[in-house]
């Protein structure tokens, strides 16, 4: 499954990131890479942006990008 399918308060582990190189780099700098744990803290409805926590870092991203992050 992908990150956009995760409901608030649910956790998952990143399996793979299928996004453009630059975005992958920026995600990596925020602590998102294969093998890392993620949790969805908030999301605004089904289509709204999501607040995601990786370690001690929170960030927001849109559903479209979240769909490029495969998790388990």
């Amino acid at each position, binding site marked *: 499954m992908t990150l956009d399918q995760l409901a608030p308060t649910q956790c998952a582990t990143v399996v793979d990131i299928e996004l453009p190189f*630059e*975005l992958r*780099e*920026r*995600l*990596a*700098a*925020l*602590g998102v890479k294969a093998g890392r744990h993620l949790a969805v*803290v*908030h999301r*605004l*409805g089904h*289509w*709204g*942006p999501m*607040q995601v926590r*990786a*370690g*001690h*870092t*929170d*960030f*927001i*991203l*849109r559903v*479209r*990008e979240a769909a490029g992050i495969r998790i388990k």
Partner: protein
Amino acid sequence: MAVRPTRRRIALVGMPNTGKSTLFGRLTGVRAKVANWPGMTVDLLSAKVILGEQAVEVVDLPGLYSLHGFGEDERVVRHFLEQESLSLLVVVLNAVQIERQLPLVLQLKALELPMLVVLNMADEAAHLGIRINVDRLTESLGVPVCQVSAKRGDGIGELRRRMTAAIAGQDGRMSSRADALLIEDDRLEIEAERIVSAGVDFPHSLPATLTDRIDRVLLHRWLGLPLFVLLMYGLFQAVYGIGVPLQDGCKWLIGLLREGWLAPALENASPVLRSFVLEGLVDGVGTVLTFLPIILVFFVLMAVVEDSGYLARVAFLMDRWMARLGLDGRAFVMQIMGMGCNVPALMGTRVIRSRSQRLLSLLVIPFSLCSARLQVIVFLSAAFFPPHQAPLVLLSLYAVSFLVAFASAGVWKRRFGSDEPLLLEFPPYRLPTLRALFQQGWHSTRHFLQGASGFILGGVLLIWLLTHVPFDQAPASAGTLAGQLAAWLQPVFSPLGIDAILSIALLFGFVAKEIVLGGLAVIYGAGDDQLGELLASRLDWVQAYSFMLFILIYTPCLSSVATIRREAKSLRFATLAVIWPLVVAWGVSFGFYQTARWLLG
């Protein structure tokens, strides 16, 4: 940067939102614009500091996530590190996020420059139960490490001692190893993990923080936006609740100075000199000065909002709507920051990576009702509307400001919009210290005065000249220069209900909106007290509102235009940014005035 090659130079570097600028302020006493909002340092700030017995230059570099990134900030830092020689690199980390930030330290370490690692926000880390073994970290990194809280000022003395010691043994400055930028990230990654696991203890589960609990309410799907509007409404209520009594005090003082001291002193002076001092200088500049308390309170309260971390939440809440306009949530935040002054908000667009989206933001930010326009609008709404309606009039103009910005974005999104992905770090809520608040308020007000004082004084005096020359004519009558100019402008402004002579003030408002009010005082030959009554006797509320709409929307001030030109690096775009608002302002005022006249018969 023009620096003598022998002077010691220290650079502060670190990820966005690590408190680097606050630390810079602590070390140098220079207050960089700080906000709990990623990417606020947009220019290279530098200041001189005395360390030990040496004058040292300290440079605050923009925040960057990685030396290998592609953002504009990252390019700036990389270029700086490649080109400039340094005596010491001070790497600032957010201690809470040490795990994620260490790879950057290792990237920087590979440059083989003298280095010092600062764990900032040590108090927040301790509060979250993160225990950092500084000795072990120092040992594994092979670089001195110290813990500080820049916000509270803890550990700054020790940091200064370490910095002094680090540069004491050196002859000059060193250049970085050029090939260091090519090191593979994966290897650094593994090393960082090893260092963290040896030197840092994380609690097993994170406590549900206060931030999470507040966010449950403020980020609520349905309540979030209404709460935002309510908060902003409360902010403006507070601005007037606190600011207006202070303003009354200012008026009283200036009145005392004018009537009790200056007027008697000039009793025997020539009428021209008397008019110049009393109606030009005192009425013009004095009217503007009475608004200083409101501006000060406004800036202090905006600083609370900026430092609190709430703006990132606003970006989150608004993103979906802004995306439809080819922008993202950050653009909305810039719009709010623009309420202080448009210029820093325009510079803040540098966090937006896509050029076309940045241009679209640059185009719409000047519609944000800045503090200079606020003065004019507050003044006019108090003069034309009863006290219980005036705040609603103001609120309506804020609404118009956002509507015009959104509509403009809608119109231009095909040309400039983009669907750049949004990826924004979310800071925890933080309470600003009182010291920081007053510094920020004072700094912004001083900036406002410094930036505006020359313009205000010059503009007000020029308006005085235009409305009084030739001296044998009645001031501001058809025979004066201003009267002739106004007659020429009349066909453009009369369909908007804007009085010929009022249009003169608008002409000067193009330079700086701060001039408009002082200009009005000079044009009508009245101080703050009588100006309102005088205006109310000459115009009706429909004309006044049309005038306010025009002031709100028309061409950005000269500093904003210069900033847009610099940021967009395009004269053509800057021209568009001048003409478009002018057209919109005319259209909106015309639409309002003609409709209102028709409805009211």
